[in-house]
Each structure stands twice: as C-alpha cells, then as structure tokens.
C-alpha cells in the first residue's frame, strides 16, 4: 500500500523502536482532540514529506528518520504546527494545537 493508513490503531506489530524513528502526537483545539485533521510532515527545510488524517481521538503517526521535523495540521477548526526534534530512533511525541 502507499496511502495513509488508519491512524487509530496502535503501532504495527514488529515495530522496533530501537531502530525506527516514530513521530506521533495529537491534534487539539482548546484542549479537545480534533479528528479528521490533515496532518502534514515537513522536513527541516520545510519540504513536504507525508500526510495522514488524524483519528477520531486526534492521533497521528509518521515513520521518519532522526532530524528536525515540522508537523502541520489543517482542519475546519483552524491550522497549526509544532516542531519535533528527533535526536535518534524511538517514539517522539508532540501536540499540535489548531486555532
């Protein structure tokens, strides 16, 4: 497959957080989760890398590489972004507030 997978499910079986760099988080508006937001992963130069749709609980996830990333969310509640600095493999989490 190549399209964005369902973001509601837990990490795929066999995901090795000792090797993979996983960026994950939640889209919120006024503290409440925003489902159905379009969440875009931009690399350190601002270049588009991937896009998923947040789950009903606002969750999203990307499989990337160590580095500095921007997570940008577009939604009916507004847009917003957050910067994630992944120094190495593992699970890196953030919250993206939209307004």
């Amino acid at each position, binding site marked *: 497959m*190549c*399209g*964005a*997978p*369902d973001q509601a499910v837990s990490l795929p079986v066999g995901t090795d957080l000792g090797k993979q760099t996983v960026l994950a988080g939640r889209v919120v508006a006024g503290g409440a989760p925003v489902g*159905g937001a379009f969440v875009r992963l931009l690399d350190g130069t601002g270049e588009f890398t991937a*896009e998923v749709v947040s789950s009903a609980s606002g969750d999203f996830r990307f499989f990337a*590489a160590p580095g500095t990333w921007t997570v940008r969310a*577009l939604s009916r509640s507004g847009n917003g972004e957050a910067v994630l600095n992944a120094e190495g493999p593992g699970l890196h989490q953030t919250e993206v507030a939209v307004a």
Partner: protein
Amino acid sequence: MSREDVLVSTDWAEKNLGAEGVVFVEVDEDTTAYDGGHIPGAVKFSWTTELTDPVRRDVLSKEDFEAVLSAKGISNDDLVVLYGGNNNWFAAYAYWEFKLYGHENVKLIDGGRKKWELDGRTLTTEVPERKATSYTAKDADLSIRAFRDEVVASIGVKNLVDVRSPDEYSGKIFAPAHLPQEVSQRRGHVKGAINVPWSKAANEDGTFRSDEELTALYGEAGLDGKKAVIAYCRIGERSSHTWFVLRELLGHKDVKNYDGSWVEYGSLVGVPIELGASA
C-alpha cells in the same frame, strides 16, 4: 486543453450534485473514509480491489474494467467526476485508467476530498443505488502507459521523472514516511531520473498549483519540454498525479505513467540504479 476540460472545483461539484449524466466517484486505496461520509450521490471505488487486478500486479483487463463500470451503473456517455483522499493520488490513477480504456469524459475535483472537507461541505453516509449499465471499453491506449523495458531504454533518452519524496529518491528510505519502512527491494532511483516530488505540484489544501508555477517547477528541475516523459513513483499512483499535471494541465503531448514504478524497477536484476540526492 484547458483546466476546465479536466478539472472541476469543489464549488462546481456541489452545484452539480445529482445532475443528469454526471457521476461522482470517490476512489481510494482504503475506502474507510467513504463509509464514514462521502459527497452526496458519489459511487465508491476501491483502488485495491476494483481498479487493479486481484491476482496479477496490473491494471484491470478491458473486460474486467467493463464489468466493474457496468456494475457501478456508469455509462459510456456519462461525465465521470473523480475525487479521493490522499491528495487525489488514487483518483488520479483512476483518471489515468479511465483514459487508458478510452473514457474521454472524465474530470478530477481540484483538491479532492481534503478540499471538500476543509470547505465544510456536506458529506453523507447514504449509498446511492444506480441501475447497472452495459459499458463498452476501448482497447488500452498504450501511449500513456510505460512498461519496464521502455523505462530502461529511455535512460538518457527521455525525461524520467521520479515523483517520490527526496528521501525515497536518494535511497535514504524505502517508502513514504507515513508507512513502516520494512520492504526489502533495492533503494534509490532510475539512473538519470530527475526528482520532482508530486507534492510540489499541489498546494497544501490539495488543489493544483497554477500553470505558471507548474511550468516553472518542471523547467527548473531540468525537464526537457521537447522530449517525451515517463513518470514513476513507488506503486504508480503518485506518478498518476504528476502524469495528470504534465499531460492534462500543461499539455505535454507524450507523457506516460510507469505504473510498475519503484516496486517493480527496484526489484529487477541488473538495471541501472543511482543513489543520492538530485543534482
């Protein structure tokens, strides 16, 4: 060819819901989104099970294409308006497949499902019932489809456009960053291919950039407008998006989609592969 011949806006789509002779079709790899709500009257197409062969890795055969369209209630003279999630990738693939089998009257909704949702337009879970038709397809138009041998023979001859992300092109990662990186074929790109990620052709709301921006984009990337073009990605749907831009929006005459793409090429024995970022 102008944009109006191949694209409709979400506004046009909303005004033409239920119009005689217009069939809206939502296409995606995973059709969960359709089940949760779709454009009123839209028919569901699963790219995975209804637009690709269930056994061979291939598009549908002509007969299967006819059977699917007939069952969905689509006639030869209907205007088919395609849209989907994932920035219209799979809708663009469907557009290419409809053109492959000679359905001329087909358009994309600019921005697809994302634009429709961000506009706050109505979605419904009501599934339309359409009477079956007897659809007749033409023989596949291979002037818009490239196969592996042609890709190898085109190295240094035609424009090869790799539309994947820079990290997939350079060989840093195997697959897009929203997927686990577990696949096992070789990394890199076809020797001599230029890298113009599909995403550069779209705005963040999923709509296509202007003709002026698109012309500048491919010109600056080194695409030679006097030579034929073959676009590829990983499984052929992101490259359908770029095929649409180059042929349908910018009017390049000879543009093919290599739907075998990197999943095929990166598994071939002995073919030229390069690693590293674009020059």
